[in-house]
């Protein structure tokens, strides 16, 4: 059996779906951020697979930018989590309904 692009794409899709499901069912904000990282990794895998298939380095460049954005997102997200959990220890995403109106 030969490993084709479709295999990588299916693996990326599986990672994306597992991450998205975790984002929906977990209530701990830290684990939710980790699930976002899983989703980003699934997409990165697809980008690299297409980059290889099409022989274009642009896909790898996009992955580089996704890494930078992921790092910035984690920094700001964890800053928010620290600020929220310092005020109300043990809070979950369901408790943050102050803006519900």
């Amino acid at each position, binding site marked *: 059996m030969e*490993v084709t*692009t*479709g*295999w*990588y*794409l*299916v*693996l990326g*899709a*599986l*990672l994306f*779906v*597992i*991450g*998205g*499901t*975790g984002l*929906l069912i*977990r*209530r*701990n904000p*830290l*684990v939710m951020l*980790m699930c976002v*990282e*899983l989703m980003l990794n699934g997409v*990165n*895998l697809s980008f*690299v*697979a297409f*980059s*290889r*298939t099409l*022989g*274009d*380095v*642009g896909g*790898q*460049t996009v*992955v*580089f*930018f996704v*890494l*930078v*954005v*992921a*790092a*910035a997102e*984690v*920094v*700001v997200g964890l*800053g*928010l*989590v*620290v*600020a929220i*959990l310092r005020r109300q*220890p043990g809070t*979950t995403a*369901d408790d943050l309904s102050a803006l519900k109106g």
Partner: protein
Amino acid sequence: MVDTLVFIVAAVVCLVGALGVVLARNPVHSALMLVMTLFGVAVQFVAQEAHFLAAVQVIVYAGAIVVLFLFVIMLLGVDRAQSLEMSFLPVQRWAALLFASGSLAVVVALILAVGEPVTGLEAMGGALGSTDDVRLLARSLFSDYVYAFELTSLLLVIAVIGAVVLVRKPRETDAVVAEDRGDA
């Protein structure tokens, strides 16, 4: 044959790690499982000759982002086990199930339907070939994508400033606000 074996082993590592992130009750275990997934993805990058991205994946993700997660977990002391069943919104479980099955079905159906998606167009960012990918990536990054590259530096500065502002102690913020009011 070796390619297939590497793919299967790394894919199993990725998927077990991903399921571990979602299903582990302890956030520390989730973070460690995330490292496992990231290493699996790095192996997949190497298998597709994206060596630079594999190195960056290990250094930035496993070395910086996960360590940041672990720092925050330890700092806040939230490293205790939590039930997976706590406080679901009524429709949330079904929404998650619908999202998972629906999006997976759509994506896999698309992949199977399209097959090998080659458009035949010329590569815009430089063709991957026999030369090393670092050289090609650098040329692409500093020529075609140079504005985006500069914008990411701006993004990183904003993220650092935002993080510092967010995690300041509330008392200091109040003092600054009072001081500003006093001056005005």
